[in-house]
């Protein structure tokens, strides 16, 4: 059967194309504008392409205008710290729920599911008070510890461990491995893709998070990229060019990971859909 172009098909193809342009145009504008001169960025009427030619000045200047290096370092420590700890702890807990028989398994997992539904905004003020009382407000530990485990992570890791073949642990028990060795040497390596999926999910959410680091940090030296950039843009204290360069720098790491590990970004979302 030959392909037929009906009006319906043309309309849907056209709207998909329009959507494509709408998504890609602002992104390309951001990319191109990084290399514009300040005069170009402020010119009236504005244009998409630079008229003064391309320049790298914005990327040179931005480091002097704002403590971008500090922001970057803080974001890496915060987001990577949370990711590493949470993947470890969540996989341990998920493993216990999936593979071990123990008293209280059912109600504890129900508690995890309920925890998953609680919006952050509902608990943020006592969390702030708690972290303050613990004396770790405005420190890396204050940023990392409250997020070092996530109910969604436990749920996700459990679903990976559940799908492993039955009685896999028995061979380990026969070989005289203890329970932790069985988890670490035998089972965890089989759930590598689950760990990567959860890791990327956590990395993305924490890297991009705004409200949480905004509350938990008070000095400019502790700000993450999201929280720090908002402060500087709000004050309108620096020029257009360096602001755009800082924005791009904050996006690059995730975009790079996205290019190479796209399927893991999507897998986490597909799994979050399962819980509905």
């Amino acid at each position, binding site marked *: 059967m030959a392909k037929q172009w009906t009006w319906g098909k043309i309309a*849907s193809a056209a709207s*998909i194309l329009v*959507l*494509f342009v*709408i*998504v890609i145009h*602002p*992104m390309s504008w*951001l990319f191109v504008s990084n290399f514009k001169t300040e005069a170009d*960025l402020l*010119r*009236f009427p*504005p244009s998409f392409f630079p008229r003064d030619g391309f320049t790298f000045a914005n990327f040179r200047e931005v480091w002097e205008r704002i403590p971008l290096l500090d922001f970057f370092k803080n974001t890496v420590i915060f987001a990577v710290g949370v990711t590493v700890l949470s993947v470890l*702890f*969540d996989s*341990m*807990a998920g*493993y*216990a729920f999936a593979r*071990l*028989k*123990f008293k209280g*398994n059912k109600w*504890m997992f129900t508690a995890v599911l309920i*925890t998953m539904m*609680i*919006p952050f*905004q*509902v*608990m*943020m*003020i*006592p969390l*702030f*008070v708690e972290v303050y009382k613990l004396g770790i407000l405005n420190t890396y530990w204050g940023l990392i*510890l409250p997020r*070092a*485990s996530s109910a969604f992570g*436990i749920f996700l890791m459990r679903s990976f461990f559940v799908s492993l073949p039955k009685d896999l642990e028995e061979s380990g028990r026969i070989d005289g491995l*203890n*329970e*932790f060795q069985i*988890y670490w040497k035998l089972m965890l390596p089989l759930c590598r893709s689950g760990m990567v999926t959860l890791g990327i999910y956590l990395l*993305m959410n924490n890297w*991009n998070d705004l*409200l949480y680091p*905004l509350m938990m940090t008070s000095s400019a030296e502790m700000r993450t990229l*999201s929280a720090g*950039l908002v402060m500087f*843009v709000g004050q309108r204290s620096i020029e257009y060019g360096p602001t*755009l360069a800082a*924005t*791009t720098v*904050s*996006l690059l790491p995730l*975009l790079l990971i*996205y290019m190479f590990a796209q399927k893991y970004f*999507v897998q986490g*979302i597909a799994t979050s859909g399962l819980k*509905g």
Partner: protein
Amino acid sequence: MSTDKRFLRSWLTRPDKAAYLFLLPSALILSVFVIVPVIATLGISLMNMDVFLKKADFAGLDHFRQLADDERFWNALKNTAYFAVIEVPLQVFASLLAAVYVAKNTKFRKFLRSVYFLPAICSFTAIGIAWSFLLDPQTGLYTEYLYNLGFPRIGFLRDPVWAMPTVILMTVWKTFGYTMMLLVAGLQNIPNSYYEAAEIDGAGSFRKFVGITIPMLIPALSFTVITTTIGALQVFDQVFVMTQGGPLNKTETVVAYIYNVGFSMAPYDLGYASAISVALFVIILILTLSMNRYFTNKETSM
């Protein structure tokens, strides 16, 4: 020391006991940093407390009485409702449109999928900054495009009427790719044989869409609608970055108001901010439960 080791070993060789050791770190963290704070929100909402934690005394239901008369709270609630009522349908519609087109696993469609998803991996901070520049009344490229199309040259984010619709459109732009992926996963779960059977019966593409795709997609669709709604009721980032709640508090949402009351406006009233959190939680809970019920009925009736 050696007794500790022996103790650990005896626990680690018994699965029913080892389980508790596996659960310990997560159980500690989730109890201290999620469960205790949730319960404490209720407690703090009944107290007078400021951000410096200097004073803390019992206030009873004062804050909830204050809430009832607080025009700024009702304004924030109205803004949040406005946001949700427009944003959720737009986002679900846009992501459904895109999902139906890109669900098949051809190279071109996979490419489209990864492009549509691109804004979803960027932070609201970065996206908000870019859009504020694009919509600047003088130097904004999109202000210029719109002017050429016959719109007035105004600051869309600084205009009391236009600020909220602008924030809404920008939110849809950033997040539709995320929900699209949810729906694509749902679409790919529909067995192809259903469509083949319908084709044998001579069904056109519209009838296939209404008769098969939509009913089969209800679980994924309901999850999408519910999570998008919950997200819309908690909207904060894009407002904080692009308008700071202005102009004239026209874009101040409930969460933005909570943040302002607790952390950015004197007297930094944590007790009152907690009371607003409790109110928001109750609203989210009621909406989620009733939507869940509505969709469950739909699913069983199909």
